[in-house]
């Protein structure tokens, strides 16, 4: 049963990825805090706050920025529960795992002594806390941005900020293809799993995987070629033209300036 459950969990995690981007559709049109601002302003603001987090050298200020990012998320109607599920637990586990040894390896003032020359130092604790807090804060900020902004507005915002159109188109296509790949892979997995009875042997599983992978690849390459033809057929000649963004409103400028000031303050106080 364990081998089949690997397949199932792979399917589930793929579906999860698909589901994730769906939520952003609902939130991105809702009238909450972050949604009020032009996507460019959102991009720059979140980036400034992330920058402030990385510059911050004091644990107390870092905690303040974390609290701020949570409030921003809540004000934009991102539920705390979804933050916990998506970001905080994962980051805590991953980063925690990575940071854990630092408690013991960083030399300095000893706080807790364990038998066998292992000890937790004050410096180690501070380091681990700062690392985890930084990652949690920046992850919260990024997730809030993505959940509150429709993908196409994000791309258009980047275009207005100067990223070349070709890259924007490639990014958009990649995003599209990822879901196509996932859908096709899902379909292939599900049809295989439902057709096999009982536990699959190692060899069978490997050959199923390689066959499926080959089919997936084939379909993907064909699709890529067809997309190229479809682009040509509608007039693409090498220089892509995309829709532009509207002008910034006073509201947007004010928001941007305040966040900028806040970030600068945090960096100054937290240095």
């Amino acid at each position, binding site marked *: 049963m364990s081998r089949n459950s690997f397949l199932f969990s792979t399917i589930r995690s793929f579906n999860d990825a*698909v589901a994730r*981007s*769906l939520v952003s*559709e609902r939130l991105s*049109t809702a009238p909450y805090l972050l949604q009020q601002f032009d996507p460019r302003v959102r991009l720059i603001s979140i980036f400034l706050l992330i920058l402030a987090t990385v510059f911050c050298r004091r644990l107390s200020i870092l905690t303040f920025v974390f609290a701020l990012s949570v409030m921003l998320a809540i004000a934009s109607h991102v539920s705390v529960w979804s933050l916990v599920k998506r970001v905080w637990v994962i980051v805590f586990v991953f980063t925690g795992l990575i940071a854990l040894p630092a408690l013991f390896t960083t030399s300095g003032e000893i706080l807790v002594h364990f038998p066998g020359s292992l000890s937790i130092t004050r410096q180690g604790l501070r380091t681990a806390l700062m690392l985890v807090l930084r990652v949690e804060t920046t992850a919260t900020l990024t997730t809030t941005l993505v959940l509150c902004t*429709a*993908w*196409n507005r994000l*791309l258009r915002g980047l275009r207005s900020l100067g990223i070349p159109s070709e890259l924007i188109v490639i990014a*958009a*296509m990649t*995003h*599209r293809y990822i*879901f*196509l790949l996932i*859908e096709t892979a899902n379909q292939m997995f599900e049809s295989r799993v439902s057709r096999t009875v009982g536990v699959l042997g190692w060899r069978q599983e490997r050959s199923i995987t390689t066959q499926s992978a080959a089919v997936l690849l084939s379909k993907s390459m064909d*699709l890529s070629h*067809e*997309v190229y*033809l*479809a*682009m*040509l*057929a*509608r*007039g*693409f*000649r090498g220089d*892509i*033209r*995309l*829709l*532009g963004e509207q002008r910034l409103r006073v509201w947007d400028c004010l928001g941007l300036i305040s966040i900028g000031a806040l970030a600068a303050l945090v960096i100054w106080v937290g240095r």
Partner: protein
Amino acid sequence: MPPLFELQDVSFDYDGVPALSRLNLQIERGQQIVLLGANGSGKSTLLRLLNALCFPSLGSVRFEGNLLTRESSQRDEFMLTFRRRTALVFQNPDAQLFNPTVFEEIAFGPLQMQWSEAEVTRRVNETMDLMGISHLRGRPPYRLSGGEKKRVALASVLVLDPEVLLLDEPTATLDPRTQSQFIDLVQGWRDTSKTVITATHQLDIVEDIARSALVMEAGTVVASGSTSEILMNSELLLKTNLIHAHRHSHNGIVHSHPHSHRHSHQH
């Protein structure tokens, strides 16, 4: 007045595998033709040649007397007009859905035609109303059903108001209702000056969408005539693998005769 499309002795192969051989064809403006053929008969390749998406290994393809070659495809002015006036709808709608939302997808063509943004927006809204997909404007492609995808794909080419429509298996994978909506659309073009070439192997819709038909087999045209004539020629249809004969039963009676699996009749 040269014919709209003229193919002379056209051969085409994919990496040595022949797809079209010594094809001769003339298509006049305003004709509405159906290209009949089983899978692999070369229908898709022919449509792509007509749309200058690939070029013949031998022979020539002309549009209004102009040669369509790799070289002529470099001439910007010519190609810009050509691309606006001709449209190809691919069999796989996913090939035509590479933008983040439906609105942007439909806007892609007009934007590449260098129209102003105001004009683009107006045209896109018009087309979405026409196709009944205005409610899908902000949807990403992966949240569209099969039928919706096809409609968006159609809209993305119709927005340019093309004179020539090349449709590759347009009703494959469509449910009956969407299929009939599509047929209504094509019938709406019947008395306009639009040239519509539909490639399909679905015999049951053929009479509804075109008056003349071409039958393809192994990369050449083996027959042409009015659709009703062709449909009555069971021998031809059997030979070109458009229908088949095998023992089957309905109403409890077992028999065998040529048929395609989309019909019902009484015995």
